[in-house]
């Protein structure tokens, strides 16, 4: 195969077709415009926007991030412009682009998730919804929806019943057995699973004896969490028939390939965008190079090809 022979990167995740498997992760790419000067959005497999709630949210008091060894903690607190402003001011910039737009959403209650899904349904320019279940259920004493399979089922059902868009459920790693919420989401009718969200963490300043984050605890992302993410994606792929989007700590084409090889149909890149805003473009061209080196034509020849000695 020659250097320039065409290779196919297109993937299908149930109802969602992507021209390549490389997306940007929610909360790390704003509403798409912030990096548009550096990243032609149409080259991406998909853009997942910052999590949206029914009403605008202020977020947590600063400091909101802290760099750790190989990662970063954040406690943004789901600050966002709210549904109406998103539809009025953010979506119109994305709508004309030939790139799937995936709206990440979250609520304080099961009902809010349903209302949001209904509010987003039918708007031209939205290609899928991604449900963030890593946030507290106000009616259940602040316990994260994602940590209880029953609540996962309720939230996903609420969204499923109010939208015709493809539904992605984004799992939290802060559970003992990741296959339980995965199963619950599948039973509730999600089309796709994505994982992982950030890993719960904390840091302290020994000089002041104060937490590094205004919210005391936060979520860890970046290269440090990749092995955890890979293991969980692998477990979910073993346990579920749904297409899976893998993310957590991806910074290079090698990282992306690890997720694809274990069976993820697509990947998302989060924290690495901050370090190299063009990392997704590098990963996309790196995947093409890899296929040529391997003498393959189609990325689907790589997906799910992990060789485990038995």
């Amino acid at each position, binding site marked *: 195969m020659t250097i320039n022979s065409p290779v196919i990167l297109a993937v299908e995740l149930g109802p969602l077709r992507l021209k390549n498997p490389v997306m940007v992760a929610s*909360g*790390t*790419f*704003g509403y798409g415009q*912030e*990096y548009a*000067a*550096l990243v032609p959005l149409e080259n991406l497999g998909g853009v997942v926007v*910052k999590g949206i709630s029914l*009403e*605008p*949210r*202020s*977020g947590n*008091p*600063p*400091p*909101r*991030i*802290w*760099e750790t*060894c*190989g*990662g*970063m903690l*954040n406690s*943004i607190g789901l*600050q966002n412009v*709210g549904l109406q402003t998103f539809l009025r001011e953010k979506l119109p910039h994305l709508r004309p682009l030939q790139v799937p737009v995936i709206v990440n959403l979250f609520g304080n209650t099961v009902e809010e998730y349903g209302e949001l899904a209904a509010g987003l349904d039918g708007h031209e320019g939205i290609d899928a919804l991604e449900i963030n279940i890593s946030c507290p259920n106000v009616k259940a004493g602040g316990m994260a929806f994602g940590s209880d399979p029953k609540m996962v089922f309720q939230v996903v059902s609420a969204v499923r019943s109010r939208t015709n868009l493809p539904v992605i459920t984004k799992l939290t790693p802060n559970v003992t057995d990741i296959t339980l919420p995965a199963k619950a989401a599948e039973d509730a009718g999600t089309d796709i699973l994505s994982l992982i969200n950030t890993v719960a963490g904390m840091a302290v300043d020994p000089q002041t004896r104060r937490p590094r984050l205004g919210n005391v605890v936060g979520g860890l992302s*970046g*290269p440090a969490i990749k092995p955890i993410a890979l293991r969980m994606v692998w477990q979910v792929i073993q346990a579920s028939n749904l297409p899976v989007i893998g993310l957590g700590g991806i*910074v290079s084409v090698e990282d992306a390939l690890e997720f694809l090889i274990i069976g993820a149909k697509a990947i998302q890149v989060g*924290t*690495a*965008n*901050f*370090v*190299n*805003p*063009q990392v997704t473009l590098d990963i996309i061209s790196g995947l093409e190079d890899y296929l040529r080196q391997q003498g393959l034509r189609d990325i689907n020849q790589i997906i799910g090809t992990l060789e485990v000695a038995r």
Partner: protein
Amino acid sequence: MILRNAQILFNKPMSTELYHLGLLCPDIAVSIQPGQFVMVRIRDSFDPLLRRPFAIHRLYPNDPPGSLEILYKVVGKGTRLLTTMQPGNSVNLLGPLGRGFRFPNDNGFVLLVAGGIGIAPLPYLAETLAAHKHKGPFVLWFGGKTSGDLVCVQHFKDLGFAVEIVTEDGSIGRKGLVTEHLEPWLIQQDELPKVIYSCGPYPMQRSIAEMAARLRISSQLSMEALMGCGVGACLSCSLRCRPPQGAADPHYANVCQNGPVFDGEEIIWE
């Protein structure tokens, strides 16, 4: 917004803690404004993970064309690593970023205030103001912990600035904090400036904003925050500000996008 490798021209220690870093980056040098900043990726690895924000200290349009200078203080992992970089190496820059200093339509008294490493963005600002045909007077109030913190003083003098120095240990100039000495001095002047430009630690910025409010003049304050992206994508660099009409309360502005230079009246001080 541009992403470029920039060759290191020089990386000179001014003291044990302060370094001048010269970088060749014509694309950013031609467009960056005083008070704007760049996010620096010190090396092509993920350790340290995040880019580091730095202001532009000076531009050198001809020496060689398109070069710029950063003044940095060694405080941790990233800046320590930066000291090991040699001329000929390169770093990766993302910029110009943020909203810099604004220049009200005024050509009188120019007052700059710096605390410690807060001096970093002021030479470029001073050069720009000096070129704006202000009639003056031009004054810099510069505070540090000790005399070693007070770099670039001669440069301001060469630009026609009177430099008023304050050190916490009294090793040079007045003893104490800039904010203790500035207000009594200002009140004795024939006229007040329309605006105070200031860069320094949070408590100093707060005192400057409060003083400016008392004297009914405006203040432009360059603020700091921990930054993830530098471009408004991650919402980590929040600074509590007065909410615009219809916005959620509390309202957090992004220092990287809405700042780093804020009007003192915009900020809600913690």
